[in-house]
């Protein structure tokens, strides 16, 4: 399956791009499986903490073919 990964904040600077398309040899993937996979694929530290939104929702738990996954560094609003 193909998913679009979007980067934000510090992560966007680190990656040097806003987004990229990633191929995963699965038909779906759970959020808790996706996090370590993304850390490995994008050479992010094991200790790096980030949130994931799937199709603009933080509560969605599974990504499927064609979905957009937003990779969020720790929130710093206010």
């Amino acid at each position: 399956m193909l998913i679009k990964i979007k980067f934000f904040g510090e992560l966007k600077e680190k990656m040097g791009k806003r987004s990229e398309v990633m191929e995963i040899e699965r038909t779906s993937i759970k959020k808790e499986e996706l996090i370590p996979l993304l850390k490995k694929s994008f050479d992010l530290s094991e200790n790096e903490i980030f949130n994931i939104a799937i199709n603009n929702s933080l509560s969605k738990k599974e990504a499927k073919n064609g979905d957009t996954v937003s990779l969020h560094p720790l929130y710093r609003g206010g």
Partner: protein
Amino acid sequence: MDVQIIIGKIPPSLEEIKKFLKEKKAGAIFIFNGVVRAVNNNEEVEKLEYEVDKETAENELKKFLKKYKKEVYKIFIYQAEGILPVGEDTIIIGVSSKSRKEAFSACEEILEFMKHKFPVWKKEHYKNGKNYWL
């Protein structure tokens, strides 16, 4: 309950916000306005740069605001994005409610949500040329 959310570069005027928040049943209107401060961590700030995942931010905020059903009548929220010089508005939260207690409390809860659970990031640029993601 009426909700207005604006994520953008130009906030509406205070008069426009008050006009939206006015409600016959309401006995209180509370408006919080965050601005870019001139000094942070003992360094002189030149500007703040805000980035927002707009679609996710709006979705999550709408979900969070569903908790206010009874005595909160209207909620206005502005979140800045882009480059903001010192003194500019970063965030505006307005609440109209039956009495002051609900307005204060809702405003504080929304602000805490937006500080910690809302996809916004800020980079501070200092007058000495340094900059950091906060």
